[in-house]
């Protein structure tokens, strides 16, 4: 047995076992591998959920959210828009932003 690997014994409900069996069948892998696939997918989902929530609450930036979710910044931006979270730039800020760029001296 690989010394890096740890043993984990767990009692699980029949419906969870059914999911494990389904993944095992679909992926044509043993049940241990099926559990690993499910844990990994679940972790990704939970990480993304956490990143989106923190971003939505204004607690972290996009790049920080991307790190938490294990995505690139571009992928994180896609997730943010898919979940309907929008920039909070206002009309007044837009006007100021345009003016700022136009008022700067030419290179």
């Amino acid at each position: 047995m690989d010394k890096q690997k740890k043993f984990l014994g767990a009692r699980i409900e029949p419906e969870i076992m059914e999911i494990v069996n389904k993944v095992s069948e679909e992926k044509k892998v043993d049940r241990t591998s099926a559990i690993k696939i499910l844990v990994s997918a679940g972790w990704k989902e939970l990480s993304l959920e956490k990143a989106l929530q923190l971003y939505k609450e204004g607690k972290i930036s996009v790049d920080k959210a991307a790190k938490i979710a294990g995505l690139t910044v571009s992928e994180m931006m896609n997730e943010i828009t898919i979940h309907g979270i929008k920039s909070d730039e206002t009309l007044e800020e837009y006007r100021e932003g345009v003016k700022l760029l136009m008022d700067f001296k030419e290179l």
Partner: protein
Amino acid sequence: MILAIDSCSIILLAKAMVLEELAKWRKIMITKEVFNEVLEGKDKKLLDALVLERLVKERIIIIKENINKKLIQKFKTDFGLGGGEAGSIALALESEDKAIITDNKQGRKAAKIQRLKLSGSIDVIMALYKLNKISKEKAIGALKVLKGQGWFQDYLIETALQEVQDG
């Protein structure tokens, strides 16, 4: 004059096909971290990664290194910013013009608190258009790309589109 820009705005402006026009018009500086964040999309052949790589290679966009690490750490802690965003705010603060382009919610909040001059991607497109740096068709196309990205509130894009259409 020098403008700092973050990953988020580089990605949006590259997708809208106006990043090069902006960088040829104004001096744009980015941090190494921002460069790396955007270039993560290179393996997937993302347009933004390929455009930024070329613009940096051609020295149209400059990478600024040796930014105040204590300041970066402070912004990471105080505002929950990632390395790229924190570095961009620090870079803007260190520059003479103290200006930044960011469409990142938390980045904009930090920029306001630090009293930086603030602009965003829609503002860039409109300024480029108003000063005849891009055509009406290009401005409309760029705004429609941003609309399709879904990043901004619809009314803001619609306002900008109307302003371009009205000439």
